């Protein structure tokens, strides 16, 4: 199809919007409400272009044969300016106007809007919850959070209510977020282009604990934090900054820097043993992993029938937090009460998890990757110039199997590596389970375990979870991650988190796994030592008491 784009004749494929065509040719058009992979809604009205002299939104308009498209003219500029100004009127009340913090203020700076003549109409109260905070005073009603919650996660915790200028985003009956079936995954945080949804910060509490000399502050970092933290400090996407991150944490005054990967290895030992036990006893199948706190909450709200299928293992950071307050405290002779455990997680749901009554004592505070970056900046540490350091013993040693926990399919792959070797007694020739890898929403495969075929499935993203649950009975072992592509796409990861960035982080994770000498959890010498000295054997009574948990039924609304 021939069209004229900015006075130039070009050939374009059919079925592409004007915005797509412009993007391919490097023409920048500002847009806020476009959602990667979903249909355009054309709510923000910033992506205006002229089609045959008429103003249209480029994200939702398809060109036709012989049409003329103009992407920059005084008319477009004038109308875009007015639209942006009207958006700003809704947003400006509590915004600090930092162009680096979110898309709207970035666009405002780019198009050169300096004066905003309108005042906000409404004043709202913030919606505070344990993990995700919504500030309607910043909201411009673009609806991206609603689409993330509904179409990506299939949770539908929020929707538009009211009409006209009273329209706003809210849970049903104007309840607060923590009173409704919100799984705290934080995908709305990534969707929001104006920074109106963010995590509840625990920086103040952590800094106070660091200042308190009586407290022994222990920090642990999740596998997916090390592949994303660098982005916050201008490093290329997908750089692994494990050593620098440990050095920065130590510099800030944390007494011990442990690795959640150790907890991940331990999870695999417990979960692998539990799975082998179920294979021996013949069920109940499928066994479903429980590393993801958002998935746990999802199950507690919507899938009560799955309780017997769930593994009883705690998530890795809760396991490590518990051991830090028992095994480690005994070893160095500290009182449990003097230990503060801080987890650095890519996740907003972990913040909720740490407030659960049955898990409250294990981990005290959870910080997201973004919060850690903020903390490092406030301590005026230059991440890029730090020298690599190593995690502390005894809870700092880990294997490649633990690192891949950060990506979707990782827990499955790590569990299969260990379950195969412990179950059959043979050595696994090829440790790479390619069927479990990749950014696909649902992945399936099978493994031969001493003549028994074990079918496994992996799902990430709430909508995919619901899809997989419909045919769950076909499988023996299922891994569920609430966020698309697993923890590397988690709600606490640096902005922006989109498909391209996630792919880079995933590559980094699997490259990191290849670099490890030990790539199976049961080969971790510290884990072996822990079982010998403290826990006995995987699945022992003591391990059950410390490392396993139970679930509650929650209302489905």
């Amino acid at each position, binding site marked *: 199809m021939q069209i004229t784009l900015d006075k130039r004749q070009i050939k374009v494929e059919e079925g592409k919007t004007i915005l797509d065509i412009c993007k391919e040719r490097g023409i920048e058009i500002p847009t806020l409400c476009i959602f990667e992979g979903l249909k355009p809604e054309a709510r923000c009205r910033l992506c205006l272009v002229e089609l045959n002299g008429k103003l249209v939104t480029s994200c939702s308009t398809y060109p036709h044969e012989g049409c003329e498209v103009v992407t920059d003219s005084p008319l477009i500029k004038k109308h875009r300016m007015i639209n942006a100004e009207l958006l700003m009127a809704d947003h400006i009340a509590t915004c600090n106007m930092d162009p680096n913090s979110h898309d709207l203020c970035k666009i405002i700076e780019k198009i050169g809007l300096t004066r905003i003549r309108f005042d906000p109409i409404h004043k709202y109260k913030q919606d505070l919850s344990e993990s995700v905070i919504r500030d309607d005073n910043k909201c411009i009603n673009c609806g991206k959070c609603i689409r993330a919650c509904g179409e990506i996660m299939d949770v539908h915790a929020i*929707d538009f209510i009211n009409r006209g200028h009273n329209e706003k985003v809210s849970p*049903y009956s104007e309840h607060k977020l923590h009173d409704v079936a919100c799984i705290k995954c934080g995908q709305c945080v990534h969707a929001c282009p104006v920074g109106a949804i963010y995590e509840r910060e625990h920086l103040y509490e952590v800094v106070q604990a660091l200042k308190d000399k009586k407290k022994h502050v222990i920090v642990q970092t999740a596998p997916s934090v090390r592949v994303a933290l660098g982005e916050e400090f201008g490093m290329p996407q997908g750089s692994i900054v494990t050593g620098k991150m440990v050095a920065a944490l130590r510099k800030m005054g944390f007494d011990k820097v442990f690795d959640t990967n150790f907890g991940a290895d331990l999870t695999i030992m417990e979960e692998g043993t539990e799975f082998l036990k179920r294979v021996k006893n013949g069920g109940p199948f499928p066994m479903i992993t429980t590393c993801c706190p958002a998935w746990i909450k999802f199950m507690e709200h919507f899938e009560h029938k799955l309780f017997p299928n769930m593994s009883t293992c705690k998530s890795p950071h809760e396991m490590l937090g518990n051991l830090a307050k028992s095994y480690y405290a005994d070893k160095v002779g500290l009182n449990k009460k003097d230990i503060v455990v801080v987890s650095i997680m890519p996740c907003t749901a972990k913040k909720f998890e740490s407030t659960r009554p049955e898990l409250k004592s294990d981990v005290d505070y959870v910080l997201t990757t973004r919060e850690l970056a903020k903390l490092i900046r406030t301590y005026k540490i230059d991440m890029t110039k730090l020298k690599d350091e190593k995690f502390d013993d005894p809870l700092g040693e880990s294997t490649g199997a633990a690192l891949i926990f950060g990506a979707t399919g990782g827990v499955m792959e790590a569990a299969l590596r260990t379950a195969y070797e412990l179950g059959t007694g043979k050595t696994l020739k090829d440790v790479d389970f390619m069927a479990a890898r990749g950014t696909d929403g649902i992945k399936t495969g099978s493994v031969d375990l001493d003549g028994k075929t074990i079918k496994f499935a992996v799902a990430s993203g709430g909508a995919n979870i619901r899809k997989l649950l419909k045919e769950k009975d076909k499988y023996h072992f299922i891994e569920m991650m609430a966020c698309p592509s697993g923890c590397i796409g988690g709600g606490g990861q640096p902005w922006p988190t989109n498909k391209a960035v996630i792919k880079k982080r995933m590559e980094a994770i699997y490259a990191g796994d290849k670099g490890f000498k030990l790539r199976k959890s049961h080969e971790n010498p510290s884990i072996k030592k822990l079982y010998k000295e403290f826990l006995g054997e995987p699945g022992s009574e003591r391990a059950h008491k410390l490392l396993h948990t139970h679930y509650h039924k929650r209302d489905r609304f």
Partner: protein
Amino acid sequence: MVQDLLLPILKHEQKKSGYISEAAIKRISIQTGIPVSRIFGVATFYSMFHTKPQGKNMIEVCHGPSCHLNGSFNVLKSLYKSLKIKPGETTKDKKFSLHTCSCIGCCDKGPAMLLNGKQYTLLDETKLKAIIKKCRS
């Protein structure tokens, strides 16, 4: 499609109980599979649905441009004097609910209002007082 049936279902519920309660929203959600947030969104979008209990008599004052120029704000003022409620509220004895509505087609005889669906035109304070008194008795 179930989604298409949501409006008739809500209309039926509104007629049956006078408003769409939280319990009703949950019940409809279980029956149709439509998320509660969406049902509440639809119920608050249309002015014919109410999510709070309504009074026995429904007063809807027109605030179209013509009625506005003819003094619909004075109607609201005198209604506030006699009922002590503002638009969107219900009296404590649950006898009256007051709302504003868009044009009801009585532009030649403004200000106008609807009382339980019946038109009252060329309103002034004495006329309103008589209407309210009639409803009370």
